[in-house]
């Protein structure tokens, strides 16, 4: 197959462009979007590429329509994505919950900018972490990934599609305005270098009759996509294994939501990914995610030069969250610092994980500039 961009070699591209190329290599053939800074370039790249790979790129009337369209596309059998930033992400919340409830594999990108409201459209922030995890109403479970470089943005986009397909779930990628517009060298692999996952389809009529059942015991039902004669009924109402609405029986709701939680949490070791830097003998731990991690790596080096045994834990997945891993970390370090570009969000997760075993301190910065390494160093050495 011919690709509209070079593969098997490196390129110097923006984070937004990397997301678009990764999506196409991951098999995405439906993109719906609405213009918004700083995610428009993802849409523009998709608009350029999609028709060339016989895919669809369509500009919807708003972000509500965009996420709706990709859910429809996913049920029609293709991998689908939309991308936005804060205001659009807020509009998507209801249908994000619909995707959770109907177990629809989709990828939603949020290139975070300063908020609330229109805020700082061109500046990076990390203010939507809690929204990505908890934004839609009701009890729900989904996956949230968070890259820190353009290369990682590329790789996590492919991973986002694979996780969405494997677990029949929406996956959110949280980037930011800095990653969106920054150009870095990225290796764009050949398609045969990439592992690409497609959802389980029903193996037989019996499985197709239970689009929300658990025939394989892994919590992930095969997906009887439309147009194959399965006559699948999909609803956002609480439904039984066959998809029929059953809204007044507590046990039906408990079973459904329980399985949606279990299918993610039961595989959390597979889903959660992180990296460490100088953490083995560390007495001071810095826990970060996303763009701030870049400053934190430098800060760890500077602290080590000053004789402070600092180390970094960089989270590539922020939901599900490994609270146990943080507790183990808290048991062997003196203090944990959490630098983040908001008024304190990851900090609360880390503090819950630390469970009082170590002091946790927030290094908050808002306004649209990434922490400098020195700002982190100064807070640590006092």
């Amino acid at each position, binding site marked *: 197959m*011919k690709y*509209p961009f070079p593969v098997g070699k490196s390129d110097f591209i923006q984070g937004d462009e990397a997301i678009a190329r990764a999506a196409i290599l991951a098999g995405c*053939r*439906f993109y*719906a979007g609405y213009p918004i800074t700083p995610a428009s370039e993802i849409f523009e790249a998709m608009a350029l590429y999609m*028709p*060339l790979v*016989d895919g*669809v790129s*369509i500009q*919807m*009337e*708003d972000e*509500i*329509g*965009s996420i*709706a*369209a*990709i*859910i*429809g*596309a*996913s*049920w*029609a*059998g*293709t991998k*689908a994505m939309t991308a936005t930033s804060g205001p659009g992400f807020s509009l998507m919340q*209801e*249908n994000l919950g*619909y995707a959770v409830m109907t177990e629809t594999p989709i990828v939603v990108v949020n290139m975070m900018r300063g908020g609330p409201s229109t805020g700082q459209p061109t500046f990076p922030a990390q203010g939507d972490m809690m929204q990505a995890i908890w934004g839609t109403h009701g009890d729900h479970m989904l996956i949230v990934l968070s890259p820190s470089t353009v290369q990682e943005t590329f790789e996590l986009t492919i991973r986002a599609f694979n996780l969405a397909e494997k677990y029949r779930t929406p996956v959110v990628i949280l980037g930011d305005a800095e990653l969106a517009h920054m150009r870095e060298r990225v290796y764009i692999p050949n398609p045969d270098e990439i592992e690409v996952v497609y959802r389980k389809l029903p193996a037989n009529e019996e499985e197709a009759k239970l689009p929300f059942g658990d025939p394989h015991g892994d919590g992930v039902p095969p997906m009887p996509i*439309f*147009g*194959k*004669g*399965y*006559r*699948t*009924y*999909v*609803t*956002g*109402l609480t439904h039984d294994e066959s998809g*029929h*609405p059953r809204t007044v029986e507590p046990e039906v709701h408990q079973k459904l939501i329980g399985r949606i939680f279990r299918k993610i949490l039961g595989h959390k070791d597979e889903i959660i990914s992180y990296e460490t830097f100088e953490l083995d003998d560390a007495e001071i731990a810095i826990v970060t995610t996303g763009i701030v991690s870049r400053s934190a790596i430098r800060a760890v080096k500077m602290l080590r030069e000053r004789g402070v045994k600092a180390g970094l834990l960089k989270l590539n997945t922020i939901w599900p969250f490994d609270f146990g891993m943080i507790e183990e970390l808290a048991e062997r370090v003196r203090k944990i610092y959490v630098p983040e570009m908001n008024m304190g969000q990851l900090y609360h997760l880390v503090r819950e994980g630390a469970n009082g075993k170590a002091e946790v301190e927030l290094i908050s910065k808002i306004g649209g500039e990434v922490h400098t390494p020195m700002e982190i160093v100064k807070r640590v050495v006092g």
Partner: protein
Amino acid sequence: MMYLKSAYEIRDKYLRKDMLPTIFCPGCGIGSVLQFTLRAIDDLGLSQDEIVWVSGIGCSSRVPGFVNFDGLHTTHGRALAFATGIKLTNPDLRIIAFMGDGDSAAIGGNHLIHAIRRNLDVTVILINNFTYGMTGGQVAPTALKGLRGTTAPYGQFENPFDIAQLAVSAGANYVARWTVYNYIQGINSIKKALQKEGFSLVEFLSPCPVSFGRRNRMKTAPELIRWYQKITVPLAKAKKMKPEELEGKIVIGEFVDRDRPGLVKEYREYIKRAKKMMGWEQ
């Protein structure tokens, strides 16, 4: 044309028996319009496996759950946006969007306008009962001035939307409006709509005695139907009437029947253009 198959035959062929009875109240018109739609499908000999039913939220939006087809019961007002994704991904599928007036014209108004503007290949069957039946009788944006609902207990003070006219203006290929008692015209219109490329919409004035009628001194379906007879004017007659004579009336009939290219065809052309412009194809 008469439609003489027994209703039981239609029911047994097309409904999910394990989902019956329906949620509809006595006197509700949704079942009638569903029957019209199924008779149209049956008469055209369309396969159950090539049609996807899409809906939003409301009484009429529960219909996809009762029919034995692929179905997507989505969020309030958004059915046509979901349909856009389904249709463009698999153009072989025929899409029926079963919608209510509040669902399509209030919360989903923007999706409706833009789906029509794009000429999305979809057939909308629209139940207009002037009310939000499921939530208990609040006024809908179609409610004529003076009609009562729980959120306008002293009578609607806003102007109503004319959904059929809106659809014509936005560029639909086929638009008709009937009441549930115009059943032959209704079925014929649905048949035409289902065969159309692009956007088609058939609106039905449909009785809701429980949530709407009872608050407007029309407690039963027959009373509502007699009221429809009073307020509706056939298109041919309406054309000869003055605007002031049409005040408070609802025109019924076939408003437009044209053949502009649908979204699927336009997008296929767009793909060809893209490949040509990039030098990928001659």
